[in-house]
């Protein structure tokens, strides 16, 4: 039992590492015997580092771990915040996944039908699958966070572009792979990709003004009309004539330029809510 107690200045110096070797060793000996000073020295412990440690623990625990897709995108040097937005696209995917599967069903049906009917099915559906993917990647019809996102400075064109990238990397190879299963497609098995890409970029560019779903619907109706007309007037593959392919490329490039201009502008207020 001791009657001497360390004063506050000594305790504070010790905690700060400023007590010196002699005073420090003496105080340590005293602390081993004195519960009162042990209790008092605890009050001199700075809380800031503790709070910092706790804050870091919480950060580790609460922040969702990067998904495998996020990790891949980070390795590809995509900015961390953009990777987060892209990775969120799969959580919105149920609607477009359904559309994609339905379209795939049509393509398989086309393969089964074969001949002219199979070709007609393929031409009607395949170029519109990626377009549907783009349309369902963003907008009031599919995005539960749409209205909140619209009120932020983040440009919708950039958001939809990032999500579209995620959608297209899955839908395009799927449809392209399936097209190889459809008999008698010839060069159509590859040339359909050009209007598909041009239309996708067009929907992207137009989505900075209009609802993506509306643009895709108009485009889809136009394409279906063109295929049917071509089938009646000449032959179905007329919609993929070399001259028209050049036209699709021009439309795609023009839309890409518009998109580039709009990419950094915040989305204007909409009259669609």
């Amino acid at each position, binding site marked *: 039992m001791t009657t001497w107690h360390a004063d506050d200045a000594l305790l504070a110096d010790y905690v700060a590492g400023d007590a010196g070797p002699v005073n420090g060793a003496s105080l340590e000996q005293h602390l081993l015997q004195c519960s009162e000073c042990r209790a008092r020295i605890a009050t001199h412990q700075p809380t800031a580092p503790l709070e910092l440690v706790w804050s870091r623990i919480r950060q580790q625990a*609460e922040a969702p771990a990067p998904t495998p897709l996020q990790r891949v995108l980070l390795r590809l040097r995509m900015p961390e915040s953009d990777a987060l937005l892209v990775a969120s696209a799969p959580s919105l995917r149920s609607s477009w996944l359904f559309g994609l599967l339905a379209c795939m069903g049509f393509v398989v049906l086309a393969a089964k039908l074969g001949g002219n009917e199979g070709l007609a099915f393929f031409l009607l559906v395949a170029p519109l699958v990626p377009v549907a993917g783009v349309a369902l990647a963003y907008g009031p019809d599919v995005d539960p966070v749409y209205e909140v*996102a*619209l009120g*932020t*400075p*983040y440009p919708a064109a950039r958001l939809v572009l990032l999500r579209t990238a995620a959608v297209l990397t899955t839908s395009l190879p799927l449809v392209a792979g399936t097209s190889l299963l459809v008999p008698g497609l010839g060069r159509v098995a590859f040339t359909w990709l050009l209007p598909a890409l041009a239309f996708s970029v067009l929907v992207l560019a137009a989505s900075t003004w209009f609802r993506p779903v509306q643009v895709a619907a108009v485009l889809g109706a136009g394409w279906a009309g063109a295929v049917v007309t071509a089938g009646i007037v000449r032959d179905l593959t007329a919609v993929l004539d070399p001259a028209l392919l050049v036209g699709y490329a021009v439309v795609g490039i023009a839309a890409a330029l518009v998109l580039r201009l709009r990419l950094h502008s*915040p989305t204007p207020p909409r009259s669609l809510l």
Partner: protein
Amino acid sequence: MNTTASVELTGITKRYRGTTALEGVDLSLRPGITGLLGPNGAGKTTLLRILATVLAPDAGVVRLLGRVPTSAEALAEIRRRLGYLPQEMGFPRGFTGFAFVEYVAVLKEWTARDSRHEEVRRVLDLVDLGDVATRRVRALSGGQRRRVGLAQALLGAPDLLLLDEPTTGVDPEQRVSLRQVLSTAGERSTIVLSTHQTEDVAALCDRVVVLDRGRILFDGSVRDLVGTARGRVWLADAPDPQARASWRTGTGRHRNVGALAPRGSEPTEPTLEDAYLLLLGGRGQTTGVAA
């Protein structure tokens, strides 16, 4: 306190396929909390959407935080200083509370990961959701989901905070806690609170705007609105058929709002709800309030 107007609306009109949502609305707001009251379809949500720059008016001039949101630059500048909780808000499948607020934080240009995480935690703690931040939003109660929505609106301590029905489904204890958050925020920010909860307006707002059929019926202090009902609310032993609204209270007496001093009645202090009912003329409002 900043006394320049943060919101200036002049002649705002908005129509949806022939239905008039707003008709020539003029409104000027300064920092503080303004309550927006009105029956369903009065135009409250449309007004908030216009203030949130997500909807363009058909006519009129909007000036927010000193800028007119017509150029891309002005829009971005306003949206950086804006927090918005829409009336209906969905949550993407699989998102935790933290992930959802973080997603919105990225959209609000919090690109640096550490400071973004710090800010997300700050706003989740503000709405008392720190403990359930790792739970999936869809597994949370309605009141907790509403608070997740409020948390994203509070990101970055916005200068203009627009809240559409923020306390829907929130339990009384949490509502009081949210009032504390909002009253603190209202000391420096301009807050517009659209609600059906007159008690929230009475407790929080220094100013109240009542909308009906797209027009402003009243714009003034809560005290002035309550004052319009003074001498028109009575407690009596029986309901008064002449009253705008009448209901039996927990004490067994009948509260007659808008009555002309029926026999045996005694005057009572009006509430904001009474004044609101009288202002609207009691049209279709009595059943919900009398319960």
